[in-house]
């Protein structure tokens, strides 16, 4: 997967590149709009991370030109401007997602993954599983090591979300937004409590542990117990 980062703030750009490279992506970084535009036009990127306030051409203009030129790359806008109008404008011009600075890297990563997945064929699964845990979607049942586990509606949705994005770090804000539709910076300890309760049901009496806390980032469902 090849990514282009257009960011004029040197420190932000450098950290973004490092973080993304370490997450397994091939990353090009340019520090101004013209270079970025040139690269975006000449090479094929799966995703472009674009700062809106650039010294030469604005991110708005670039999105527009790239879409007019028929470029199909996913575009994620990054901006310090967080008003709804700005977001709507960005999405209308043809961007695929919009994130407001300051952002958490974990959330950016999760959103990048989600954008890149859009292009892949969706497999319609009836069953999700991890280690000996099995979730039956049509029947809405969960079993672990053959034992039936009773979950509340929200716990079921939360577990389903973890199972769909196995091995990915899911930041609390993203979980709040995806499972509870809380699309703002909410007090995330609610998520911690919810996950603790879920763990009590699916992890406490079983090995290996499935849900792991990734400190400073979020949670991850992983069948391989790292401990």
């Amino acid at each position, binding site marked *: 997967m090849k990514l282009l980062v257009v960011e004029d703030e040197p420190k932000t750009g450098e950290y973004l590149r490092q973080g993304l490279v370490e997450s397994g992506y091939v990353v090009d970084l340019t520090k101004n709009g013209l270079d970025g535009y040139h690269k975006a036009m000449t090479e094929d990127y799966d995703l472009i991370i674009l700062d809106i306030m650039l010294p030469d051409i604005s991110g708005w203009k670039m999105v527009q030109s790239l879409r007019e030129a028929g470029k199909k790359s996913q575009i994620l806008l990054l901006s310090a401007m*967080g*008003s*709804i*109008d700005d977001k709507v404008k960005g999405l209308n011009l043809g961007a695929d997602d919009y994130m*407001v600075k*300051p952002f*958490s890297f974990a959330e950016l990563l999760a959103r990048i993954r989600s954008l890149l997945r859009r292009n892949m064929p969706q497999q319609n699964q009836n069953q999700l599983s991890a280690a000996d845990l099995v979730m039956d979607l049509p029947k809405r049942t969960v079993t672990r090591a053959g034992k039936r586990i009773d979950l*509340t509606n*929200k716990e079921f949705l939360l577990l389903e979300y973890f199972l769909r994005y196995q091995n990915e770090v899911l930041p609390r804000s993203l979980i*709040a937004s995806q499972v*509870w*539709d*809380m*699309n*703002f*910076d*909410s*007090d995330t*300890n*609610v998520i911690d*409590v*919810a996950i*603790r*309760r879920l763990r009590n049901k699916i992890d406490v009496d079983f090995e290996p542990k499935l849900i792991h806390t990734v*400190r*400073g980032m979020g949670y991850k469902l992983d069948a391989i117990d790292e401990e």
Partner: protein
Amino acid sequence: MKNNSHYNLFFSIRLATLICTITSIILFILSYFIERSFENYTIKQNIAELDAVINTMQSELYARDYLDSSNNNRFEQNFSLILASHYRLFVYIEDKAGHVIFNTKGPDLLITKQHPEFYQLMATGKTGIWEHKNHSYRIAVAKISLTDDNQYTIIAAIGREQQSHYVSHLHEGLTILIIITSMISFVWTMAAIYLTQKPIERLTTRIQSVTSKHLNERIPLSIVPAKFIGIVHAFNDMLARIEDVFQRQRNFTADIAHEIRTPITNLVTQTQIALSNARTTDEYREVLYSNLEEYERLSKMITDMLFLAQADNKQLTPELVDINLKAMFTMIFDYFEPVIEDNNISFDLEGEDLIIEGDRLMLTRAIYNLISNAIRYTPSGQTITVSLKHLNKNLIQFIVANPGKKIAPEHLPKLFDRFYRVDKSRQRNGEGAGIGLAIVKSIIETLKGKICAESDELSTRIIVTLPIKNDYQNEDDKLRY
């Protein structure tokens, strides 16, 4: 200030001149009518005098011809007696044959016969003006027929000097009156303006001395006359309100500095200690995690501050959609379910289904903060109650009530201030503490609603009123803020 007083002088002179001019014009018109009516009166007087004289002459002639024709002397005597009581009145009488029967000394009235109007006057019985040797007379002519033989022509004239003398006297008097009155009105207006202006100038000086550093000063009521006390009261009230806002703003700035300084101090100290000795990788990692938490807290606080600043500057544009408030509460209760089960508290949602026009994200955030706040203060084992209802066809109301310690009335209005804490000594408790309710207030006001708090021994209640349609305007609401 200098220019200002020049301007004031110019203004007073202009106003005084204006009032003086108007007074003069009114008086002038008045005196014109007075003079005219006086003149008419004197003319009528003259005519009446002439009539009276002619009538008397007529009866005297009758007496002479029929009663006592022998005594011609007595007759002349009578005539002279009659005329003596009239000033500058002249009479000429002749008989049919043209013999002069009586003629007073003075202008030769016979000349008037040569004027073409003479016979006209005689026919109509009207009076006319006769100019003769620099004098002006009003004359009347009468033809008297006692019998066919005894026919007389009487010409009577009265000098008009007296009359025009009176009129010009009156004219002079009125002119002097006009001049004096105008002068008085000018001076009076100037004085009145000065007397009114003086306290206003004093007031202005006092008001100019009010600066942001001396907002606690009030204008003393004693420096102005009674009629301006209302203005001074209003101004003092305004000062009090501004002072309050200023004070809050100042506290806010101090608070935000404090809120930011605490985590920064933590970060600096922690990093310095970490670097002061060689550590294991795990220890470094521990420091970074701990730092990350502080960064996140700071970042969230800045985001919240930005949100509030946008709300303050009216930069938030709500994206209006129909929202079912009951469903929204249910969703948020759902979200908090794990936490309230942990704390052994419960929710109770009562009331009707309410659909209002609002911004989904903003309302979610406001309700989320309200519930989060309620959970924080509800003791274990108790219930948070939310009730929804229509107030009227335009407004809805929801109340979030949580049991807990009573909040003293003086704290209630400030509950929605940024970083305001009922208990001053209370330490930061969790992220964003002290700003959640301020955000709720901003959101509710952006959506043209109202928010207030009540508290008693049983519970603390946050009462939110929102318009059903967002274009609904309530003048009352606007005045309140």
